[in-house]
């Protein structure tokens, strides 16, 4: 089973990268929210669910361009409303309370969407420019024969790279980012310096939702549009955050790719492919409890 040809190896690498891209996009929002607000947001998968249903509806009615503009915007506003209307009341409550309330919210959102759209998968029409295949053997001469990969899945990988780069640039090259990074380490000290850190953290919650919006627009055609998708993605994405290190963005990226790859390379055995993510989580937590790139002192 390990006699992989170069072509099969390459395809599994691409598939791992593409699966990892979705995990990274969802885990990025989760880890941003956890790192800043200390809130374990189990409703984050439901935000992705809202995003894919909004994306498919707007795409059908007004085209993909409008979906690309509107879905992240609506998700940003939804994130702000969720933080102000619900989450802020749980900042000083135990994590178990946060998990219960956000998990409850996730179920409510899931059932509402099932009520409105039904339980079946809704086909997501990919725009014409994203349809078709990429002839990989033309780009990578070392491949043997005729090797193709769906264009949309490559677009998803590129979108993921661009989004991650944009978030890193925001956090590392702007004053807003400096405040957020500092706030993740010592939010009280920033308040002693006159910074209204809670307002910035509210924006971060919106930003996390916005990223779920981007993930929904590009990930919907890949993950399908059905009410269970949110929960199916939540657990792996949460484990990505844990493996990467709670609150660590580069950790989320590394762990997302790692999990995507692990699932892709064990796809020959459905049982192994299902449990591999939990195996990796157990091993990482045993060897390094703060996660691969978790900063010392952050949620230790």
């Amino acid at each position, binding site marked *: 089973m390990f006699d992989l040809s170069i072509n099969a190896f390459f395809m599994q690498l691409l598939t791992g990268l593409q699966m990892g891209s979705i995990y990274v996009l969802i885990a990025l929002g989760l880890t941003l929210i956890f790192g800043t607000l200390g809130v374990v947001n189990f409703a984050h998968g439901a935000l992705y669910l809202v995003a894919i249903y909004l994306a498919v509806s707007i795409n059908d009615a007004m085209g993909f361009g409008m979906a690309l503009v509107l879905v992240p915007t609506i998700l940003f506003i939804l994130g702000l409303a969720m933080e102000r209307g619900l989450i802020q009341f749980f900042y000083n409550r135990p994590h178990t309370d946060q998990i219960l309330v956000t998990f409850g919210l996730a179920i409510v959102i899931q059932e509402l969407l099932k009520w409105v759209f039904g339980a079946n998968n809704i086909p997501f029409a990919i725009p014409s420019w994203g349809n078709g295949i990429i002839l990989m053997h033309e780009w990578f001469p070392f491949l043997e024969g005729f090797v193709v990969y769906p264009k949309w899945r490559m677009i998803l990988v590129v979108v993921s790279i661009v989004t991650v780069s944009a978030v890193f640039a925001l956090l590392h090259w702007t*004053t807003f980012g400096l405040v957020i990074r*500092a706030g993740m*380490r*010592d939010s*009280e000290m920033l308040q*002693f*310096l006159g910074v209204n*850190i809670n307002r910035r953290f509210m924006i971060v919650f919106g930003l996390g939702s916005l990223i779920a919006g981007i993930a929904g627009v590009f990930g919907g055609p890949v993950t399908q549009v059905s009410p269970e998708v949110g929960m199916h993605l939540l657990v792996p994405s949460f484990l990505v955050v844990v493996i990467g290190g709670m609150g660590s963005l580069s950790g989320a990226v590394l762990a997302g790719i790692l999990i995507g790859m692990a699932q892709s390379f064990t796809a020959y055995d459905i049982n192994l492919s299902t449990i591999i993510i939990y195996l990796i989580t157990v091993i990482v937590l045993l060897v390094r409890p703060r996660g691969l790139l978790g900063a010392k002192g952050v949620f230790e």
Partner: protein
Amino acid sequence: MSVLANNHQVQSFFSCRDLNAYYGESYVVQGVSFDIPEGEIVALLGRNGAGKSSTLRTIARANQPALTSGEIWLNGQAMHTMETYEAARNGIQLVCEDRRIIPGVTVEDNLTLAQIAEPIGWDKERVYSHFPRLAERRKQEASSLSGGEQQMLSVARALCRDVKLLLLDEPYEGLAPVIVQEIERMLQEVKKMGITTIIVEQNAVAALKLADHAIIIDTGEIVFTGTAQEVLDNQALREEYLAV
């Protein structure tokens, strides 16, 4: 006597009235009242666990300990109705115990973070000309500084704000004697600037050398107010309330 306890009717530059604050069930600040005229330095003294740092945190409007009753006035403004960041914007600067330098960012970033919210005080050039050591280390990761340098940075960071009341919590804690002397010299310079200051310090003699007046606090309550010299001269008083 310029430091007065209890029911003083004249509005001072800084005044706190009957402060009561709790950490959960623990009653840590018990009816503390005192005034400070503008430009004076007050040493807030007492044994370990007497409630000195809790009093400073209460004045800085930290969420913990929670202020349950009492009033805090600074330059005619009611600080007791404000959030932590609002109190900081209105002139209160707490230089925390254990320095609280933000790790993971540079020395310069730590100063930048103090200059985000208006109104700001010193610009960076002024900080660097006063603290050349910080200028040398401006691009260095802040938590890699020595204890003395971190203390310097935490005071410099406070001066980057438009500070009206400086709260110094254990500025000499954990520092070698030679570094303590250096920080003492730095605080003498801060004193010349005429900033109204409250200093909490386990090393009572060092604090009294800097202060004009002293307040001794015991189990959350004020037990003595007077001049710094009175405390230095009264060995019985020091032994009763300041022995560790």
